[in-house]
């Protein structure tokens, strides 16, 4: 052994030591990250039942869970033919009447349910999904992520620029700015729920009604047109401070001299922002965007508290399948799909923003 070692160069020896020192970290990582992850992957291929109360092993069912979550079909909807005239029926406004989607979509060997309909070249089609609620959950999550992260970045950058400048009470400002982010989401979502009440007992209905908007009974949390904007507003309120904090750290890394040089060269504030601030902020911005995007993709608390069973994100749909329906196998498959979504977004960001090169 000693002989073998002596043949190694110093660098190789150090490398070996380094590997040995890494072992504890790897073991811990394997125990707390890889093992649970593997469990979820494995469970997603079974029909395991949550809290079944028995010790029987669940059956291995291959990719059946994934098929039942992601299965899609498109069917043309035939117009309803009037039995008397032999002509296609029309409704009162002269639009063609089509066969109902539930009759058009296949029922065997597996059932497809209506997701949405669209018209194309004068024909009517219906898109059926084996699990339209999961499809809607994916769509909701993506809309929520893109819009809320976009707004948070713009507003966060604005806030960061303000608190980065010199003014009296800057320290206090920086501390108070963080309050929304520091409050536990479940708690703040409850507070929002109170303010968003559908009667004038709720703050928003009261204020809007005084301003002559709405009838004092706007239902922010159940009317389809208001649900998503409300969720996004709550999330923007909550997470803009976090964005601002990250960006503030980035702003403080930019050397003052660059701005001085810029001023000497006669660059306007506007020019300084786009030629100095923004390029130098890019790495921080990328990290902040990744954090927020990945966080938003697995949004749970805001959706769960404010929407319950009325509207799902991917994570709350997962919870509903696991706890409500006790489908642990299916819920694990949803977990894996969320994981894949997050991985895809992470890779896109890294490529696009060039994070790995920095």
């Amino acid at each position, binding site marked *: 052994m000693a002989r073998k070692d002596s043949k190694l160069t110093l660098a190789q020896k150090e490398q070996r030591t380094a590997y040995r020192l890494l072992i504890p970290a790897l073991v811990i990582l394997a125990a707390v990250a890889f093992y649970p992850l593997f469990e979820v992957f494995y469970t997603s291929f079974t029909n395991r039942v949550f809290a079944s109360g028995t010790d029987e092993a669940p059956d291995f069912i291959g990719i059946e869970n994934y098929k039942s979550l992601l299965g899609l079909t498109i069917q043309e909807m035939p117009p309803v033919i009037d039995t008397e005239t032999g002509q296609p029926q029309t409704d009162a406004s002269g639009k063609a009447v089509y066969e109902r989607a*539930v009759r058009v979509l296949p029922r065997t060997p597996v059932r497809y349910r209506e997701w949405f309909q669209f018209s194309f070249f004068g024909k009517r089609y219906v898109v059926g999904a084996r699990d339209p609620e999961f499809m809607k959950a994916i769509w909701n999550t993506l809309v929520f992520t893109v819009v809320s992260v976009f707004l948070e970045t713009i507003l966060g950058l604005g806030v960061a620029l303000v608190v980065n400048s010199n003014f009296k009470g800057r320290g206090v400002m920086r501390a108070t700015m963080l309050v929304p982010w520091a409050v536990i989401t479940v708690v703040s979502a409850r507070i929002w729920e109170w303010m968003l009440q559908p009667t004038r007992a709720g703050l928003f209905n009261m204020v809007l009604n005084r301003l002559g908007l709405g009838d004092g009974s706007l*239902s922010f949390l159940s009317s389809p047109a208001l649900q998503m904007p409300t969720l996004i507003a709550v999330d923007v309120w909550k997470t803009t401070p976090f964005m601002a904090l990250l960006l503030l750290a980035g702003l403080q890394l930019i050397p003052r001299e660059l701005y001085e040089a810029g001023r000497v060269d006669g660059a306007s504030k506007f020019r300084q922002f786009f030629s100095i601030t923004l390029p130098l902020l890019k790495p921080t911005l990328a990290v902040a965007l990744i954090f927020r995007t990945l966080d938003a993709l697995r949004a749970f608390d805001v959706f769960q508290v404010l929407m319950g*069973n*009325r509207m799902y994100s991917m994570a709350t749909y997962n919870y509903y399948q696991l*706890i409500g329906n*006790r489908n642990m196998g299916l819920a694990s498959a949803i977990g894996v799909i969320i994981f894949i979504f997050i991985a895809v977004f992470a890779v896109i960001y890294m490529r696009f923003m060039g994070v790995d090169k920095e």
Partner: protein
Amino acid sequence: MRKLLLTLMVVLVALVAFSQIVLTVAAGAVGQELELTKQAAEAYMSIHPDITVKVLDTPDMVQDRLGLYLQFLEAKSPEIDVYQVDVIWPGDLAQHFIDFYEYNADKVVSMHFPAIVENNTVDGKLVAIPWFTDAGLLYYRTDLLEKYGLKPPTTWDELENAAKIIQEGERKTNPDFWGFVWQGNAYEGLTCDALEWLASNDAGTIISPDKKITIANANAIEILEKVAGWIGTISPSGVLTFAEEDARAVWQTGNAAFMRNWPYCYSLSKGPDSNVAGKFDVSPLPAGKSGNGAATLGGWQLSVSKYSKNPKEAADLALFMAGYEIQKLRAVEGSMNPTIQALYADYEVIKANPFFGSLFDVFINAVARPSTATAPRYNEVSTLFFKAVHRILSGTSDAQNVLEELALDLQDITGFEIVWGF
């Protein structure tokens, strides 16, 4: 001397060991529930000084509470000894609970309503002891009916009409006034409310006791479309986010003419901080096509976890809490319907809740949700049902499509035959 010391030490050790029995009860917190459960726990502790009873506050929404329980049960956690269990759960959760017959329940079981005992018996085991029962009631404002010269409604049409008249009149002075409030959020409570609409309109009970899917029928479409028409007219559009306590909040501030709710609201509505005290009464829910109103059977039981470290003591506690004295206390203080028949003849109980006597028929004829026929998948069935109803009520989908889809979905889950009614 040494002997004495030794004995003392033994006694002391024994005392410490005994005093270490801690029992945790997972209980509801709707209205005065939590407070009354804590009172019962204290009463038990004063009789059994060696036992400490802790009361754990659980979520108001039935779905959320089930979720919490399942997490404890999946982990086989001994942390909770006694669970407050909904009338629809014994079939779903039976395998996690002890059999009360093994802990002397046979002596008390005959006091309770036989129907509830039967509901709580799974494969001959009494997995839950009845605690209180519930049935949907119509709360109405006696002062406003009198003011507008109306009678308590006996049909949905009459209710709709009365609600419109009163709302129109009251809006002149109170812009926040609504005709009728109920539970429209997408949760188990909507299943209860919707079952009442269906049953009162000859539209069945979603899945019949002989395991046939009966939800896809014309009477169901008719009544659900009627209810959808209430939203934004006699009921606030926000009713689609209301659970029991949200409806009570509107009612108790005096901002509603009618409310559908459970009996627990009775004692709170006549309480000192209520704006409707002395101005309201309760009646059976209105009728639809069938000519008879229907009330959904609700109610809660107590179960002891198989994973409890002290099942004997926990069972004793559960039987005490479901016993005569505590049920009487809860009936008098909280207007919660006893499951012990003799209490309906108790003077103090009837004095506090005259409707226990006058509406006795409503309570014993309440319509059960199809939990027995669909066990252990009732929760899944109910969730599909209330989501379907919620979609119809929010006006995003056509009732016939939704019910047809629902029937097929229910068939996927249960494998039962569908009886098409349109």
